[in-house]
């Protein structure tokens, strides 16, 4: 049996808001699961129901084989990290990190060993005797991460813990967090609206929208084979390109032009989904338009081409000739194309 399981869990508020509309989710022991979605999708509410900070309106939640519906947060035997709190300025780094262990009355020898271990895992061993004000911003964040993760309860629940950091600090913290979770093997449920963070951290990503789970799977699968139009757009930066057209006898047509053959989808309206790395400049290509922007991105470039009805992003090698302001024809890699039914929003091929 899985460590944490949610069955048909719902949350309705007295004002009628239906924040979570029936969620089924099983999480294995030691797994790192990320709940990903835009604000208002129900991800934080779901986390709070697991923690016991909100009562669910319907369904059941089991933790370690126990129905926790009637249990208070403290009785659920799980720890949570809702944010990385500010450090105590008058305490040294060592004392700051040891603080949660002192509160939990952990014996001195054990406490010192655990502080040493967590300090090594986030790379702050050399800073233990300093005061927070003597540290750079990035180091302070590492210390607060170490403090948050020095205890190893049965589960860590985390709500956008990196939300306040700037881009540079975030990139490094994600690696620390990942390594620490791997090493401790603590089951983790993590909430974020940042798709890149989700892909990097998760064993499994749970994409949510409007109180429902849109897709649940390993990062690579969610990225390559999005189950719905929502996931296709939300995951990836830039998101998946979506080209609306019609399918008739296996031919995909957009505004009278034949875009693809041998499409295995039923006749009728159809949407073609293409990741930017599967679109390329191709003189014989069928998608045509003016390049709106060709932007350097470091390891690669992204160009945006305005084709009739859709702006298409493509990933270009950093060394390729510039496209800006040129009229270009685009081809694509049919093997990687995703096909969606616009009525249901679901992927059909």
């Amino acid at each position, binding site marked *: 049996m899985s460590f944490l399981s949610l069955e048909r869990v719902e949350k309705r508020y007295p004002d009628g808001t239906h924040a979570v509309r029936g969620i089924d989710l099983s999480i294995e022991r030691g797994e790192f699961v990320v709940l990903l979605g835009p604000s208002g999708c129900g991800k934080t509410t779901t986390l709070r129901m697991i923690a016991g900070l909100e009562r669910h309106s319907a369904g059941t939640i089991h933790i370690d084989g126990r129905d926790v519906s009637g249990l208070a947060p403290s009785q659920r035997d799980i720890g949570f990290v809702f944010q990385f709190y500010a450090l105590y300025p008058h305490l040294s780094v060592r004392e700051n990190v040891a603080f949660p262990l002192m509160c939990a009355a952990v014996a001195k020898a054990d406490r010192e060993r655990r502080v040493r271990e967590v300090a090594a895992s986030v790379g702050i061993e050399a800073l233990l005797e300093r005061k927070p004000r003597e540290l750079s911003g990035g180091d302070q964040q590492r210390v607060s991460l170490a403090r948050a993760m020095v205890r190893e309860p049965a589960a860590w629940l985390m709500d956008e813990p990196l939300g306040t950091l700037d*881009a540079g600090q975030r990139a490094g913290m994600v690696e620390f967090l990942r390594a620490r979770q791997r090493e401790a093997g603590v089951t983790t449920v993590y909430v974020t609206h940042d798709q890149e963070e989700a892909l990097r951290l998760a064993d499994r990503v749970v994409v949510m929208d409007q109180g429902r789970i849109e897709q649940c799977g390993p990062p690579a699968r969610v990225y390559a084979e999005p189950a719905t139009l929502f996931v296709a757009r939300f995951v990836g930066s*830039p998101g998946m390109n979506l080209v609306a057209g019609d399918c008739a006898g296996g031919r995909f047509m957009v505004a009278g032009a034949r875009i693809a053959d041998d499409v295995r989808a039923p006749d009728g309206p159809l949407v073609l989904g293409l990741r930017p790395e599967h679109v390329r400049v191709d003189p014989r290509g069928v998608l045509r338009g003016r390049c709106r922007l060709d932007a350097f991105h470091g390891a690669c470039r*992204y160009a945006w081409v305005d084709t009739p009805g859709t702006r298409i992003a493509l990933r270009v090698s950093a060394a390729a000739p510039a496209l800006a302001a040129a009229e270009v024809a685009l081809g694509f890699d049919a093997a990687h194309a995703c096909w969606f039914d616009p009525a249901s929003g679901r992927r059909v091929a």
Partner: protein
Amino acid sequence: MKPLLAIRGLAKSYGAVAALRGVDLDVGEREFLVVLGATGSGKTTLLRSIAGLLAPDAGTIELGGRAANALSPAERDIAYVFQNFSLYPSMTVRENLAFPLRAPGRRLEPAVVDERVARAAGLLRIERLLERPARRLSGGEMQRVAIGRAIVREPRLFLMDEPLSNLDAKLREELRVELAGLARELGAPVVWVTHDHAEALSLADRVAVLGDGRILQSGTPREVYERPADARVGRLVGFPPINVLAVAARDGWWSTDSGARIAPCAPDVPGGARAELGVRPEHVALTGGDGGARVKAVEALGPAALVVLDWCGSEVRALVEAGGPQRAGDSVAPRVDAALACVWRNQPL
């Protein structure tokens, strides 16, 4: 040709804390300049000094070849867009757009006001919102209107203080593409500050990297990314972050002290010379077999995967195509493209 904006030796302290310690910066007539810096690096202080909202302690600011230090904000004729969309909530979008043109002293004909409002609304694609009160707009719409309000003024310079940072990721990406295209169409000079290196690389004609209250490096996005002046600039620009390795010249190789041969060194480098080597993750190629490195972790990044290596005790990251064969625990042979590596010599020859 004289630059539109010329800043020399700009310094500003708040009590004992120095925000700017001598900034030199030029902005050309049609240039899109992005100032990139971490939180607290003095970006906002720089913008506020240019706008005339803050008096610097030292240094000169010239606009159009004339000393501007003594000019009031209004006399400088500069538009400033903030990260929080400062609109009048009860006014309609049209009234918000027209507001800066109705200021006493402007005395514009009503027909001119209407024309400018219509043009800005068209450029930003907000025509259909013109009669709506500002409080009923979404975040992205509000920021479009805020930028429209800067455009109608037809200022000599636009200052943008992280204008996209309060928008969610998808909207940020969409508006970034739009504004980059728009700025090029208008040919208007822009100084845009951000901590987001992807924003900086994709928007800028030129990036100025701010750190320690100084401009650490300034150049095209490609120059700053491919040839960072030192490890610090290298780390600020680009994701996944650049690998920085302490090396010494031994037997024709830049090698770490633990014996990893990272890249061949030039023949004129004397044996024993020490340097820092900067290697972008996309310039580390991996082949199978026992090459002295072990895979510690593999992270999904959408189109690519980040492979974290233990290379004779040094942590090195490689960016490879998604779906590669590497798994944690594998032994691999990393190869660094020496022509693309940055060598930062500790001492000159």
